[in-house]
């Protein structure tokens, strides 16, 4: 059975070019970049090249790039550092739809005496910048807002938000794990202090991430140890991972606009045809302000896990915001923050595409999904029994 992989916001395939670039660093050039001898030291030079490739994708300077182990580490390091840089300030602002790497850390910080404001979003998942402005106080140490949402793809106006934060003397961090490589980012055009990025979401391997730290930003490392990354992140470098991430960023930067347009065309076709073929379905998240690869669709009267498992039988990989995939009995915090009715939230499916998806794969899903929904609806006690006009709230 062929795998139709449409779960790229969860993780993505390592690009062949990336794998080829990495391989020599496992067996041939295995030296420690910190060594005095040429055998190790030369690897250090390759790491500098990768740093340049990452900086190229972000419009940053190479010395603003710190390699980490993952997006979660980058988020933790950024938030902890911003707080230790301003020991007198005890207030943090995030949104209600942040990734757990930010949300869970901030809940923990509440137990350490910090005050956390979670900004709401509207029914399209859009952030109210005026509300952000009103929430900023002289006590606010940090604003951390994601660039692109992992579940809906909705894009936050982080560059404007960074302006507002700076006006009130707060630092600004963004989790750009989903946005990097999918939409253009140029750190020269904004005031964002720190940005997190993860390798495996943009066709590099798992186990490598980046924290961008703007020049002049006070930084306290999360991991203390060796002098690696100029003392900003202790620990021997994940050399193959870093080389791979450099290559992946170089690839992502090439023709970013045309590749995004290709993915967007497939995504839009998938959405349009599914919505046309399946009654009582809808898109979650703002139609315009979205990452080009993400489609979050709700099918009323059916449950997400059941849809996923039936698609799984056909080799189609996607995810769901349904409660039953998490075991928590509550549907996704993102959809709840958007006020998506429970009847819709339970039956939500996220398709996230990449440049490796083809038109044939999209057509396959368009052909196979409607009968699955139909079959599950036939089994559902609510289907056709309720007056549709009162079912959609």
């Amino acid at each position: 059975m062929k795998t139709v992989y449409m779960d790229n916001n969860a993780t993505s395939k390592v690009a062949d070019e990336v794998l080829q670039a990495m391989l020599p660093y496992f067996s041939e050039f295995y030296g420690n970049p910190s060594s005095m001898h040429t055998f190790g030291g030369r690897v250090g030079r390759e790491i500098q090249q990768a740093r340049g490739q990452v900086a190229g994708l972000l419009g940053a300077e190479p010395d603003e790039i710190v390699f980490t182990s993952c997006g979660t580490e980058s988020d933790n390091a950024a938030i902890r550092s911003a707080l230790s840089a301003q020991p007198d300030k005890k207030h943090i602002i995030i949104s209600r739809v942040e990734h757990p790497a930010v949300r869970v850390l901030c809940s923990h910080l509440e137990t350490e005496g910090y005050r956390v404001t979670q900004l709401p979003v509207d029914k399209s998942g859009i952030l109210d910048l005026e509300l952000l402005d009103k929430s900023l106080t002289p006590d606010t140490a940090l604003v951390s807002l994601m660039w692109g949402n992992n579940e809906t793809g909705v894009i936050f106006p982080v560059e404007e938000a960074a302006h507002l934060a700076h006006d009130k003397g707060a630092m600004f961090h963004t989790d750009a794990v989903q946005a990097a490589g999918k939409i253009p980012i140029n750190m020269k055009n904004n005031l964002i202090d720190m940005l997190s990025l993860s390798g495996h979401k943009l066709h590099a391997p798992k186990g490598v991430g980046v924290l961008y730290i703007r020049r002049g930003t006070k930084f306290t490392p999360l991991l203390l140890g060796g002098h690696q990354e100029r003392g900003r992140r202790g620990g021997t470098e994940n050399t193959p991972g870093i080389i791979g991430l450099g290559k992946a960023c170089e690839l992502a930067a090439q023709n970013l606009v045309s590749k995004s347009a290709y993915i967007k065309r497939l995504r839009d076709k998938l959405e349009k045809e599914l919505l046309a073929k399946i009654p009582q379905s809808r898109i979650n998240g703002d139609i315009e302000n979205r990452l080009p690869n993400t489609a979050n669709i709700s099918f009323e009267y059916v449950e997400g896990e059941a849809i996923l498992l039936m698609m799984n039988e056909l080799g189609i990989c996607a995810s769901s915001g349904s409660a039953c995939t998490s075991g928590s009995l509550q549907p996704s915090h993102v959809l709840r923050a958007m006020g998506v009715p429970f009847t819709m939230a339970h039956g939500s499916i996220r398709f996230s595409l990449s440049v490796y998806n083809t038109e044939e794969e999209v057509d396959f899903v368009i052909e196979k999904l409607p009968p699955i929904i139909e079959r599950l609806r036939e089994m559902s006690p609510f289907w056709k029994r309720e007056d549709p006009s009162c079912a959609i709230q």
Partner: protein
Amino acid sequence: MWDYTDKVKEHFLHPRNVGEIENPDGVAEVGSLACGDALRLTFKLDENQRIADAKFKTFGCASAIASSSALTEIIKGMTLEEALRVTNRDIARYLGGLPDEKMHCSVMGKQALEKAIENYRGAPALEAGAKIICECFGVTDKEIERDVRENNLTTVEEVTNFTKAGGGCGTCHDAIAQIIERLKAEPRPEAKPRLTNLQKIRMIEETIDNEIRPSLRHDGGDLELIDVVGDRVIVATRGACATCKASGITLKNFVEHTLKERVAPEITVEEEGK
């Protein structure tokens, strides 16, 4: 990844008894769209007051659909008394087990069955003296107490996994914790002591005479206890059972199952001379 057994997957992909019986004898609906799973159960009785047919419609995850399918298969052919003795654990066991966080799916089946039988008998829907603890999912103190006792639950999280209580707004977590604490303090029934051989044989005899034979006679069959060798119970089939091709299934699914439950889980049943 789904930690489902092949049997769960099979019942999810090819569910038995989907639909609704017209003019059913009993009908019940539990759960709601808001909670993420709901089950509508209908059944019809035959002239002997046994469940002739049972059908379901379920909105929910794979294990909710599989549990509903399993439930309808289990209860077909049972009297209402027998059906009421089916526990959520029986449903889970029939499916080869369910992941912990999915046990509430089997509990939903059990609740629907009880409610449908109450509906047939015209009895009140809420147990006498029961109080709703979890407003979000309408779970009563009696239901929580029963699941805590039957499944030895010790944390609020476990109670949520089994009953869904506390899975919504969370304001009832303290009340659930109090129920767990209260039941912990209760004197627990002594664990079944190891039976002497004589006690075991007597219990086997009693179970066969009081529970198994009356049920078999109902269908014109009968059974006689021949010998007990260790945990092997040797019986002879009589009446209709003696000539019935399906008597082997009856021995395994009903006679052995009942003896395992009532006397000791190690028991196996064999037919004389086979």
